[in-house]
């Protein structure tokens, strides 16, 4: 189902661009991720709680991208970079990406997603050294 053959496609596409100013956003992204995860259980229903955990995981993904000074405007590009760069190099475990995908599809219980988001925040913090 993949449209993109890999990182090369995205480097040439208008969706991925280098922005050195994004390095300052990493800590903000992580703060936002923690805040969203904290607020998630207080949301009105299970779907919203899962969505809150997904949003937290999304902020973690953004933090990862910003840590290498890149910015993207496409969801597939996020997946490709995390898979082809962070997971392929052994920096991040693939389970986090699977959990992110499950969150995007609103799958699993709120507790599972909250745990996944918590684990991802911890992993990303370790990677970016915050």
């Amino acid at each position, binding site marked *: *189902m*993949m*449209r*993109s*053959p890999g990182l090369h496609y995205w480097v040439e*596409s*208008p*969706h991925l661009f280098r922005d050195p100013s994004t390095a300052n956003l990493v800590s903000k992204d992580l703060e*936002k991720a923690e805040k*969203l995860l904290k607020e998630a259980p207080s949301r009105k*229903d*299970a*779907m919203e709680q899962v*969505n809150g955990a*997904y*949003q937290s995981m*999304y*902020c973690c*993904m*953004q933090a990862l991208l910003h840590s290498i000074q890149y910015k*993207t*405007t*496409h*969801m*597939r590009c996020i*997946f490709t970079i995390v898979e082809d760069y962070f997971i392929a190099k052994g920096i991040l475990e693939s389970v986090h990406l699977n959990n992110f*995908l499950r969150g*995007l*599809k*609103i*799958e699993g*219980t709120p507790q599972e997603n909250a745990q996944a988001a918590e684990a991802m925040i911890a992993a990303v913090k370790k990677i970016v050294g915050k």
Partner: protein
Amino acid sequence: MAITARHFVQTYVEDFKYWFGQKERQSSFRNLPEVRGSFTVQYPEQKLRVPERFRVLPVLIYEEDNGDCRCTACGICAKVCPPQCIWIVQAKGQEGKPKPKANEFYIDMDVCMNCGFCSEFCPFDAIKMDHVFELSNTERKKSHVYNMQDLLVSTEYYAQTHPRAWAKELAVIEEEAKKKKAKEVAAAAAAKKKAEEAAKAAVAGDAAATASAPASTTAAAPAKEPAAKPSGEDKPQ
């Protein structure tokens, strides 16, 4: 002849302006939408900028700040799609009840005819037409059916490709926010007025009660007195 002459002049207008120092030449000045005339573009090294309403294939929009997909899986796009190239699977809750989020979203790009009906009909502004037209590849089957990850682009990208539409959207959002705020202010003012009126009525009621309390005692006393008087008068009889 006139048309040819016009094309000829238009082709060199930018050059004339540059030669006579009226305008600085930009590296990609031929890409500007206001440039007219006939000229050759060395594609694929050079590319013309496409107009804002140019439409190729649909994309889904997610919020840049939190990654939230706008799509609520209402299915209107799938219903209005003339060649029926959209499939949506709605997310389900723990009890099996459908939820307003898409679990799966597929568009078959070989079937899509780029009509833009889906984006026109979407009530949530979740599906828009993209500008990317270089989509050819050597694979025939799997890569032509786009799933949700392939389709999701951020609001930032949409703002870049569709600046006027985005500005309109922002204006509508601002107007709605203003209306909502005005409504809230009006509601708060009405509630305050009601509370004041209720307080006034309560004060008036209290005053009336305090005023009516001595009046009732004075009114009751004479009523008793005449009643007692005849009884007293009756007694001797």
